[in-house]
């Protein structure tokens, strides 16, 4: 069985929010719920602005699963963390434990009581036999049809990769090799002595171009 993974290549993400829109459209989530989001650090600061698309990362040791009072989470054979909305009591503990802020709650009850938790399913649906009901409760099940999550499929710069961990790793490794320096994976040219000035110049040039 393939082990499914998301990977967002921060060198490529341009904060277009295409993944966010694709996700919303594929899964038809409730109003106010956003399973995927793009976070930009140092927004607007030349030379240090970086964006990353983030959603449920389907952890190997999932904190949400560890703290859930009703044990509504379950890991699939593909390494995904899915959950059963029938068992969810809307306590919000998964949100308090999750490092990525993945769990989302519709506001349903009185006094701000939370509804059933909703989160990224890696477009793999949920525990429901009836496909119509599954789609209504958990969104698309694209994996069943041999398709990957729509966010990654529609990423215009192919920053967001989704799929079998080894495939994703191969693609990313190839990119790192083409980038051609030892920090090509998780750090930029700034780490390479002597190239810092060049990187700075390139950034300024690109910023000038974008601004004019």
């Amino acid at each position, binding site marked *: 069985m393939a082990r499914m993974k998301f990977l967002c290549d*921060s*060198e*490529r993400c341009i904060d277009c*929010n295409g993944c*966010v829109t694709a996700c919303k459209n594929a899964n038809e989530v409730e109003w*106010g719920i*956003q399973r995927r*989001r*793009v*976070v*930009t*650090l*140092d927004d607007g600061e030349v030379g*240090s*602005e*970086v964006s*990353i698309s*983030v959603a449920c990362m389907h952890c190997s040791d999932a*904190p949400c699963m*560890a703290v*859930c*009072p*009703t*044990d509504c989470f379950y890991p699939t054979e593909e390494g995904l963390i899915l959950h*059963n909305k*029938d*068992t969810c*009591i809307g*306590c*919000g*503990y998964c*949100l*308090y434990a999750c*490092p*990525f*802020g993945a769990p989302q709650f519709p*506001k349903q009850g009185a*006094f*701000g*009581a*939370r509804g059933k938790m909703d989160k990224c399913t890696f477009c793999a649906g949920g525990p429901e036999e009836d496909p119509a009901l599954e789609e209504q409760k958990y969104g698309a099940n694209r994996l069943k049809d041999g398709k990957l999550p729509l966010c990654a499929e529609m990423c215009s710069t192919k920053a967001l990769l989704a799929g079998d961990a080894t495939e994703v790793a191969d693609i990313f490794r190839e990119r790192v*090799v*083409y*980038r*051609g*320096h030892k920090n090509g994976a*998780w*750090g*930029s040219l*700034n*780490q390479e002595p002597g190239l810092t000035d*060049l*990187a700075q110049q390139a*950034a300024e*040039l*690109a910023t*000038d*171009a974008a*601004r*004019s």
Partner: protein
Amino acid sequence: MKTCKRNPGWFGLVALLLAGCLLSLPVVAQSQGGPPADARQELMQALPGVTSDYWRDVKGGVSGTTSSTSPGADTLIMVEGETWREWRNNWISPGGLIALGGSASAIFLFWLLVGQVKLDKPRTGRKIERWSRIDRTIHWYVASLFIILAVTGFLLLYAKWFLAPILPNSLWAGFMIAAKNIHNYLGPLFALGLLVMIIKWMRHNVFNRVDLKWFAKGGGIVGKGHPSAGFLNGGEKVWYWLVTFLGLTVVISGLVLDFPNFGQSRETMQTTLIIHAIGALILMAASFGHIYIGTAGTEGAFEGMKTGYVDEAWAEQHHDLWYEAVKHEAISEEELEALKAGQPAAAEAKT
């Protein structure tokens, strides 16, 4: 003016793009094991901001900007979550079981070794009013809500380990939804009762010299003879202040958790949940002691909170100073029956 300014920028970019394409072609054609790519080609794709410091910021929980409006969405990694998980799962869960189990087994052992504290003298049959109807109403209102909240709270923390495996999923789901809703909706009602009880009984619970002697004699548990006590003894006063401080802690933290519509952050909720759980578990463990002493542990104690009246013998044995002050109010069982039947005038006439 604007177009003039624009041109050099665009020109630069196009030139750089072209240069990049030209330079990249031979490199791409090479196999992966070939020499490293040209640095200038790398410039075309590299974002200068993606540095080790950037990843350090991400790991450290630095906030950025996002279009998502869900709470805390501007943080990529919320680092406090792991600490909370560790506190809750590795310390509070086992710690609570140790506290509850320890308390219950200590009481059971005490009961086996010492047994019930019997009345020294036979009952006189004359009764003294100890708890008025209002007192008893408040007590049983708070007590029953406490038990319901303790049981549902216990289930929310532990039921997944012993009930989830044996219940069918549909039943389990309904059970836990009920537990959460009962806990959340009865909580504020408990808070009201607790507040009234704390205020109503505060005047009985000021520590004095008599209590010091009572503590020095270990409350009469060790050795023979009962230390003197007023209306309430030192142990009862300790229980009162435990209920006051821990109860208020649990109630205040509970209200913060119960109304998430005021925009509490995840970090606030984590801390509050830890305080709530620790306070509630200590209170539950201590309540076992109160329940034991008030029921099976002491002969003649339970009727005080049940009927409102205690026997003279019990009053003299456990609360001698109070007994001295109120013994003239003692009434016979027949008078008490008459009183309950709604003839207080007749009863008073007899005394």
